[in-house]
Structure formats: C-alpha cells, structure tokens
C-alpha cells in the first residue's frame, strides 16, 4: 500500500538528516520526500510517500514520533489533496512531433515554460500518477531531463497539523 505521510517538524539544524537517517536505518521504503517551511516561524513540514503494509506504516509513524523535533505525524488516509510538481524536458525531433507533443501536454494541462530549437520544458502539477502518466506519454519522443518534487499533501476540510497544547511535564 502507498501512503502519504505528513510530518510537522521544528526547523532545527540536522532535522532533515535525522529523518532521512531514521528511514534508511529502519529499512523503510520511501518513494519521495518533500520539505518546506510553513506559515509559522520555526516550523517546517515534510511529506513522505511510503510503501508498505499497515504494520510498516505504524512503525514509520511511531519511529518518526520518537524524534524530538517531530511535532506531529499524520497518515493521509482520510480525504486529502495531493500534488506533485514536475519539470520535464522533452526532445523535439521535428515539426510533426512538436505538434503531437503539444497536444499531449494540453491533455495533461502541462504548461510550456521553455522552448528551444530541439527541446521543450513542461511544467506539470497533479497527483503522482498523473505526473507518472505524463512522463510515460512523453517517453517515446525522448525524455532529456525529469525533475519531480515528490508529493505534498494536505487533509481536506478543517483538519490541520498543529503544535499540541503543552502537557504537564513528567
């Protein structure tokens, strides 16, 4: 099973290394990892795409929670929005192909962000399978470079990841 996991972390030096190290050490299978700042100072948010059964997922969540800088972990099993951004540089051998390529891109709602004599860069957002399908559709023309950000996700509705209220110290 594929899961998207969001992790709210304190933006401290080494935190990304800690998370990456933990994943490698525990042998978890990670498809992608994306990280960025949030609207709150000192907090970053990480999206992980993990494959594994429920037991693996439970361990990923629990082990992440053990990290001191990890504030909250959630598995997006509930309705959520998931997006990935990709930049795809496609080879354009000739005029005929150029038209075909543009047609395909339109169907995927990919934007052209750079045009050269023998290549086009497309920008595409969507869930990971859409990105995957677009890349496969372009493969026959010749993929020159592909850069994907990895999936990011938010839960739908009011549900949010936030810092818990302070509990009494033990």
């Amino acid at each position, binding site marked *: 099973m594929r899961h998207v996991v969001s992790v709210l972390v*304190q933006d401290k*030096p*080494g935190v990304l290394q800690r998370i990456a190290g933990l994943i490698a050490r525990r042998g978890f299978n990670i498809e992608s990892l994306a990280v960025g700042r949030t609207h709150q100072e000192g907090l970053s948010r990480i999206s992980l795409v993990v494959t594994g059964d429920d037991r693996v997922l439970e361990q990923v969540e629990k082990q992440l*929670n053990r990290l*001191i800088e*990890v*504030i909250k972990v959630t598995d997006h099993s509930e309705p959520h929005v998931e997006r990935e951004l990709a930049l795809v540089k496609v080879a354009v051998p000739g005029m005929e192909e150029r038209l075909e390529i543009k047609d395909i891109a339109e169907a995927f709602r990919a934007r052209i962000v750079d045009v050269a004599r023998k290549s086009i860069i497309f920008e595409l957002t969507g869930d990971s399978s859409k990105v995957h399908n677009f890349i496969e559709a372009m493969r026959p023309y010749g993929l020159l470079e592909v850069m994907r950000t990895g999936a990011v996700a938010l839960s739908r509705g009011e549900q949010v990841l936030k810092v818990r209220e302070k*509990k009494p110290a*033990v």
Partner: protein
Amino acid sequence: MNGAAAILKALEKQGVNIIFGHPGGTIMPTYDALYDSPIRHILVRHEQGGVHAATAYARASGKVGVVMATSGPGALNLVTGLQDALMDSTAVVAITGNVPQALIGTDAFQEADVCGITQPVTKHNFQIRDVRDIPRVIAEAFYIASTGRPGPVLVDVPKDVQLAPFSGSFDVEIDLPGYKPTFKGHPRQIERALEALAKAKKPVLMVGGGAQHASAEVIEFAEKSGIPVIPTLMGLGAFPGTHRQFLGMPGMHGSVAANWAIHNADTILAIGLRFDDRVTGKVSRFAPNAHTIIHVDIDPAEIGKLVSTAIPVVGDAKWVAAELAKGARKLSIAEWWQQVDEWRTKHPFGWNSKPYLQSQEVIHAFWEATGGKAIVTSGVGQHQMFTAQFFKFDKPRSWINSGGLGTMGVGLPFAIGAALARPGETVIDFDGDGSFQMTLQELATVKKYNLPVKIVILNNGFLGMVRQWQDLFHARRYSEVYLADSNPDFAKLAEAYGIKGLTLSDRGKLAETVKEVLEHEGPVLLDCRVHHEEGVFPMIPSGGAAEDMIIENPREAVEAGD
C-alpha cells in the same frame, strides 16, 4: 563567567556531582572551569571507560550519568558506549568539545562530525552555537535523557562557545514542543489487562529493564495475583531472584521453566521490555499459545514492533504496575503452578561437579558469601550468562550488564561507575579474560580513586562464548578464539597497578579465597583459572524456539557415554 563555567553551573543545577571524562584540546576551557567547580571529576584512561562508567552510575543510582570528552578522537571513543546506553535505555549526558565554529567543516585538527556520527546512537543530540543557549540546552538534554524512555543525549560545544562571555540566567524553560512522553497508562487499558488476566489459565508476568525503578509495584502486583514471574536479563533484580514466584530469565540461555512457561502460556503480561530476539528466538514461533499479550511500555514504538499485542498500555512501568497492583486479584492457577513447578524442580540451573574449578561455582560462592548483597557487573560472554543464572539478584539496580548491545569490556568501567554511585556497597565484576582486556586500562582509575571493586576474572583462556558456538555449530573448528597462549598473568598485572592480585585454580581453596577477596578493604583482582571447555546451558540456538532448547551440554552426555 564564560560558556565553560556556564556548562558546569548548568550541570550543577541538574544535581550533577560527578563527571567521568578525559580532557583534550577543544574541551580545555571546560576542564579549566572544572578547577573551580564543586563537581567531582573522575579521570578515566579511555573515553569508552568514561561513558560506560557514566552508564553504570546512572543504572546503579537512578540519576543521570555524565561523561565529558574532547572533539574528534575523544568524542568518537564514546560511540560504543552511547549505543550501549541507547539499547539498554540508560540516561546519560555526554558533553563534547568541538573545534571553534569558524573551523567547523574545514577538516580542522581533531574535527569530526560528532553530531552526525552520534545521531543514530543517541536519543537526541545538540550542538550549541550560541553561548546564551547553554542553560536551556543542558536542561533539555537532562530532561530528554531522564524522562520517557531514558537514553543518552550528547551536547557538542565548539570551543569558541565555551570561551565566549556568559551573563544569562540559569532559570530556563524547556522548549520541546515535539517531546511529550506519556506517563500514565490509559485506565481502560489497565482494566482490560486485569480482565484478561482474571480469565487466564496459564498466565506469566515478564519483567524487563524498564521496570528496574518499579520493583516494589511489580512485587506487589505479583504477590497479590500469584502469577509466575520471569524477569529478562535486563529485568533481573526488579523481581527477587530468591522469590518463590521467580522462574528465572527467559531466552537463549534462560531457564527451562521460564521458556516452557512462556511457550505454554495463554496470557503474557510484559512490563518494560522490548522482546529482543535473544528473548524471543524466532518471533513467529514465540509464545505460540498466548492468545493475549499485554504489553506495558513507555515507548509506543516498542508496542507491536515485533510481537502482536492484544492489549497495549503506553505508560511508565511504575505507574502502571501500581495501578495493576491496586486492581489485582488472586488468580486461580493452581494447576498451572503445578506444571511450572514440575519444570522448575526437574530442570534448575545447575552444573555437573568436575575435578577442576568451574565458573558456576565461583559465582555461586560469591553469591552465598555476600548473601546476594552486592552490585554485580560483567563483561559479555559465557561468564555473563553464568552470572545471570547463578547470582540471585534480590534488589533492583544490582545487576549492571550490557544486554542490548552485548559490549565486551563493560565489566570494569561498569564496576567503577557503580562503586562511585553507591559507595560502601560491595561491587563485584565477574569478567571474562577476553572482555576484561578490552578496557583493562581502567585499572588505573580503580587505583587512582581506590575504588574497592572486586574483579573476578573467570579465565577460561578462550573467547568462550564464540568457542561454544564453534563447538556446537561449526564442527569444533576453533577459529581465532584461543587466548591462553598470550594472556597476561592477571594477578601480576593488577599488582603492577598497585592493586591486590590473586590467582585461584584449586577448587578446594574456593571458599577461603572468596572470603579473602571480600574481606580485603580495597580493590582486588582474582584470576580464576576455570576449565576451558565449559558450555552455557540450557541453550536455544539463534533463531530457534523453546522446542529447540538444548537443556544439557551434548558434549558431556557423549563424554559420559550415554
């Protein structure tokens, strides 16, 4: 005041009165400040000795152990000990110097990425980059190390931070929004646990190292319910070894009664343990008849990690055991006890008396002579297992060994830490000739502070535990395990350090020698020349299950002709 003095002041605020350590270039400002500090420093001869001593200090006292080292080589010598403390959940704070911030990342002299390297071997680590953060970070380090599931925390302090002027306050607030250990177990889960136990026909209680501080509550619960009790290697002492409900430890070299009781149990209550593979053997064949496993642990990640748990209780062992004790009822398990007793009487830990000196009888003799009143440490190997089998630990925090990591060489530094934590008590290190030689430089520390530790080397001239595996599983091909040809004369070695040294090979002299060792006021090393081919049994081969248990030494059966 500078940063270095602030570090020591902050440590003082945490109640630290002893630091184990070794100086060097980048930690020198703090050593300079130590000159004026009321904190006592114990100078070890190798940083590994320091971190192990701090670990034992923590385990024997229940306080946080502190170790200090310089950057690069000094800090890296801590790595083994940090992992050891991590695996056996021990509260240790390590303070390391580092090169000045301007030099970090330049491959400066004695620079190493200490925070990077120690990340997987600590519960958490910090690098202090601003002198103003010292009081808060030290407070957070102690808080993290000692709460929740205890563990080692490293604080790395670049030299310029130690030298920077400091004028802040030491009344600091901890700011750890991501760290909220659960303390109280869920009442409904505790109720469910009690209900499951009430229905059980064949229950057992397993107690781990996480219950060393919960001994009184565990005993109360056990006595009220009348349940058979199985402490793990790390749990020994949390429940008295001479108690009539004690079945011995489980696992690879555990007792027959403990392993068969777990194998046949229908309900297992496990408090403060993590189902290590040395306890479970092959997990899929562990406790096949247990329909209900109740797992009490402070670390939620341990629950369901290896063994599926019907009733998880996340909480502190002491708190949960007290609640369990409150609700406990006498269980009607007379038949089960009959069965368990049969195993216990038929297969006690024992040894076949031989004409030569045996490790088992040496340990037994010390147990008898001390009445069990001692803090005991060991290295790793056969002697460690023999100690766990034959020294009956009646008190918590009295057995300090390396369970999770199995670190050879911990025996002597552990004894040092224990002796400093609990002055006036007898401390015995049952060590192996191999293990002892991994940290023997700490004899100098024993001498320097005249610590009255009793070092008993069970000298079989081999890396005995490895030899045993080669004997059983590698057709007696004794590859690189022979030590006797090049071992030192350990008694003379001790004497060279100014420590009383004795050698024993005549078993007829055992009792008087034990007496001599215990009555000597200062430190003693006793080199016991034990037989070279003894085996530890029972044994469940690695990856096996209770059914695969080898109860008696097959070699001896053959040699006896049956």
